[in-house]
């Protein structure tokens, strides 16, 4: 450390460090701009292309930043004597060790998350109690938008401690489920067919993917699950609402009674 301080007071050339800082700053600005502007541009593209572009964005961003770090290292190695470099890296390591440990942990987790494709922009993910669509992926954290339109920032380091559930894993297709709870006395075949019709006739439904109705008998009645894919994953909650509204109307026309809420809740 004292060698490093001595070199600072001597003929230490500060410009390489300045260039590296400028380089990292420019990289940060470009990455931030890309994170903000590309999703906006992607909104004007067809669904399939938008999905691919957004999926590729985090990896491109991380690659770009890794490239900048490599260039910075090359500048360091080319600009300083070995002794000064060891001192410099030692000092930086000390700083990182004490002050920037969470940041570095987050960055490393971010690289791992991108490599493992744990989540990509546009994916529907659940981390702990937070569920929403991934809006952007930064170096340290990623942002999701919840159904209540709240932005939640989640550090990549949650990768080490939490399970991350991803509903669509980079695909534009995203299965959604609408639940219906009926009292035991009804024609299950008729209800199942009608709910299937509700799914196949919803204007949100992706017709190239299957519509499925599954049911399970419970002590309080029957639990129906109508599963279908929306045309656009961003419409998940409107799609579920549409299925629910039309499904309830169709079931009411059939005379199927809803399950007793108290008994079902106790389950």
């Amino acid at each position, binding site marked *: 450390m004292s060698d490093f301080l001595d070199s600072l007071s001597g003929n230490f050339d500060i410009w390489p460090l300045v260039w590296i800082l400028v380089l990292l700053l420019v990289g940060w600005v470009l990455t931030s701009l890309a994170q903000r502007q590309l999703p906006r541009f992607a909104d004007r593209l067809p669904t399939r292309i938008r999905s691919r572009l957004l999926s590729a964005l985090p990896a491109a961003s991380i690659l770009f930043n890794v490239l900048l770090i490599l260039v910075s290292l090359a500048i360091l190695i080319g600009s300083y004597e070995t002794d000064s470099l060891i001192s410099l890296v030692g000092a930086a390591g000390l700083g990182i060790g004490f002050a920037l440990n969470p940041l570095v942990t987050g960055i490393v987790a971010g690289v791992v998350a991108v490599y493992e494709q744990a989540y990509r922009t546009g994916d529907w993910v659940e981390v702990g109690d937070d569920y929403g669509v991934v809006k952007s992926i930064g170096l340290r954290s990623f942002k999701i938008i919840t159904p209540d339109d709240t932005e939640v920032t989640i550090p990549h380091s949650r990768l080490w401690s939490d399970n991350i559930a991803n509903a669509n894993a980079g695909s534009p297709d995203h299965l959604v489920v609408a639940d219906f709870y009926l009292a035991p006395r009804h024609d299950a075949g008729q209800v199942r067919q009608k709910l299937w019709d509700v799914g196949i006739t919803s*204007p949100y439904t992706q017709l190239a993917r299957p519509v499925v109705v599954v049911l399970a008998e419970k002590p309080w009645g029957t639990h129906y699950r109508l599963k279908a894919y929306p*045309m656009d994953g961003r419409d998940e909650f409107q799609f579920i609402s549409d299925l629910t509204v039309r499904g309830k*109307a169709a079931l009411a026309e059939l005379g199927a009674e809803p399950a007793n809420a108290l008994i079902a809740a106790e389950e």
Partner: protein
Amino acid sequence: MSQSTTPKTDKTDQQADGKPPLWELIPLAEFKPPSSPAPEAVRSGLHDLWRRLRGGETANNGAEPDVEMERPSQRLLDWAAPEPDWAATELAGLETGLSGWLDSEAASVGVQTIVDPPMGLVRERLERWAAEQDYFIITPPTPEQIIADSDEWLGALPLDGGQRLLLPRLERSFLRHHNGLDLLRRLLDRIDRLDPPLLVLCQSWAWPYLCQAVQFDAVLGAPRTPAPFGDEALHRWLGGSAQDASPHPVVFREASNGKTLLEPFAPDSSPSSTASAYLKNLAARSRGNPRVAWNIWRSALLASKDRSVEKEAQEEAKEDVGYTLWVRPWEQMHLPDLAGSAKSLDGMLLYTLLLHGGLARHLLTDLLPFSPGQLLERLHRLRVAGVVEESGDVWGPTPVGYPAIRRFLEEEGFLVDAL
């Protein structure tokens, strides 16, 4: 009021020039739309990307009208590109395509399905022909009959009488509503049991949906469809129409370079020698649909030439016998475009219109998750974009806007038709 002509596509022509009939029926699985020439595909792709980057705006927005290129008079337009009488379209090729079904004397000849291209290409002609042949023409059920759990409409159909039947608008016999498929299921069940001699006409967008939702193809079998009009067919059809309808010769010249279009075929000419890039682009843009192609062609006709036409071509045009009409260069066509401007929810609306072959506004409100105000706003925005129009109280796609709608829906991942 435009004149109507019967397209010149009779058997005599077929024998004289040795070319196949224009109105031919082919298996749906064999349908292949005309492909776009490579330069046009590149230009169109770049234009599309540029529009998206600009958020749907085009360089033409707000541009001064091109005063140099005037529209011809209505009379001249009706001579040069008369509106075809679709109900009188020559059926030689269609009858050949259906020969196995039509010629059979057996009452149990079964069901034959024809998939009609968007905006109806053969429906009017088939209805007239079926009426002449004493077919029972089935009137589609009303929306109320479709939704109601009643057999009133179905019970009135003579499915077991042995009489030949025509169901001309299958797309109007269901609704994309949770109660809108039951009637068709019951019809399908009766068809399966009674095996009536039935000719079914279904618009191309309804067919894949019904195959998915009601498994129609399992009972109705492999459908047939009109063959696409490529550049050579358009040449014969558009050129023949002008010759038949106009009392004076009409010469068509490209406004940018003065080259003639739609010249009569020389006896020894091969299709490749007479092919024009313009007609290839027209055939590709319309996906071989003559109704779409005719509307685009008619909108491209101009009374006066472009400034850029070379003097030599201008001099040549002065010697034309009869009338000279100039055709707007393909690159300068202002055709509707939805790239970058339409939203995914617009896709729902456009898809629903195509699925049912046009719908009244009150039905759209029932089928789509839009409030009446939202629906009206979308319809008017799409009308301004030139892709939908209201005829009576029914909204539907415009022929010139249809290619843009199809492209948009395909890019958005909707279940598109095969035509």
